[in-house]
């Protein structure tokens, strides 16, 4: 008898509707209003690559060891260097990183022994050209500069 009443009065459907109506309360809205509010990404987020600079003497931290290029599965890093005659060390000349083929796996960041190359929390790297996705040393040191349309 109870089953018949449940069937006629659509008890199971109202049970589901109760859940749905419970969430109509505006305090349950969890939509992120992007781009008005930017999401807080994690500290370890693997985003845009960056070549770090030593803050004390404004020189690059990279020692041109080529470990990042060796580690990359896609072979998209090209490190150019020349031998410095006075210090007998390698000096970085060019550093090319092809973000169009990068899969942001983090193997280059893991391989770098001096933490010069790191994947930062920037994710707004879109561009209009395919060639613009190949970043040279200057772009890597500055980081992506997305154009802000509204402050």
């Amino acid at each position: 008898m109870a089953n018949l009443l449940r069937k006629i009065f659509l008890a199971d459907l109202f049970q589901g509707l109760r859940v749905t109506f419970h969430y109509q309360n505006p305090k349950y809205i969890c939509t992120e209003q992007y781009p008005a509010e930017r999401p807080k990404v994690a500290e370890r987020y693997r985003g845009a690559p960056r070549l770090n600079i030593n803050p004390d003497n404004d020189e690059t931290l990279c020692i041109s060891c080529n470990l990042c290029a060796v580690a990359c599965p896609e072979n998209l890093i090209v490190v150019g260097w020349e031998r410095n005659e006075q210090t007998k060390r390698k000096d970085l000349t060019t550093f090319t990183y092809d973000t169009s083929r990068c899969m942001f796996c983090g193997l280059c960041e893991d391989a770098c022994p001096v933490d010069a190359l790191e994947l930062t929390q920037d994710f707004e790297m879109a561009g209009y050209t395919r060639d613009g996705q190949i970043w040279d040393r200057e772009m890597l040191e500055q980081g992506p500069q997305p154009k802000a349309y509204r402050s």
Partner: protein
Amino acid sequence: MPESTFLDSTELVLNMGPQHPSTHGVLRVILKLDGEKVLGTDCVIGYLHRGVEKIAENRTYAQFNPYVDRMDYVAAVSNGLGYCLAIEKLLNVEAPPRAQAVRVILTELNRVASHLVWLGTHALDIGAITPVFYCFREREEALKIFENYCGARLTTHAFRIGGLQYETYDGFEREVLAFCDMFLPKVDEYEELLTNNRIWAGRLQRVGVLNAEECKEYGVTGPVLRAAGVKWDVRKAQPYSGYEQYEFEIPTRENGDTYDRYVVRMQEMRQSVRIMRQAVEKLAPGPIMAKVPKVIKPPVGEVYVSIEAPKGELGYYVVSDGTTQPYRVRVRPPSFVNLQALDRMVAGGLVADVVAIIGTIDIVLGEVDR
């Protein structure tokens, strides 16, 4: 086309094309229909074939690790676990206990996330639009934990050969336990929405029946096999990564229809939460990486290692020839093998059932096609 049907005047060949909201990816199903009854199906796959196995022959072992995530992209952590376990077996090393516990936590979290995608999209295909929002809201919490741990939400590349790259972050245990506490009442909510719902039961019961014998013949594993009554799970049968230490149950049902698979997966989500809680308790300080050489060169040999991915038995057959690059990596994809059984499950059903059955097998085309 299967030879059991032949074309006569009342039959219609309908293409459920690669672009379709209900085929869970780029799957093309050619249906032979008699009115609304399905006489036969033919799956055309390969639209997402990227040649992952060929890529593996041209990358070193550590370099291939990120590619593995891209196969079953919904459960990337599981794929990574399987691959790392296979290479570790070739090298004859074992990850330290702390690494194993963290791996179990992340893998079970990934199982929950994968089942949430399954539930949301399956319900959406059948016509219940609400669960998908709730499932993705919960999945967001799980993905936040992945992001905090390894830096990416979907293609996580969380594990390395020999253990873990990253130590757990401050608050990892707290966040995982908070997720567990938050999640169990939500599973109750999904059940309130769906389990007793007459429309849901009407759409799912006695649809797509695959009994235990047929499951074994077709090599179907995972929740589909367990819903047919076979109590088999790779985590219990051939435990890996410390699963023998955890207490959990294997949910099974008898009928092997779509409704049973739904119930099995909901129970599996609860069991995953149970495992996660135990694993967090077992987390003790220690090393996270085994002694693995910098350049990985396993001795000549081959190995087959399989894990219980959310979709079924995911296996890696790796052949090494002693160099830094694998000679052959074969991925045994559960979705590929499970999809074979589509033809048997659909026989005699209606067109609307095809959608329900594709959803219930829980395929991810990235894994079917690799």
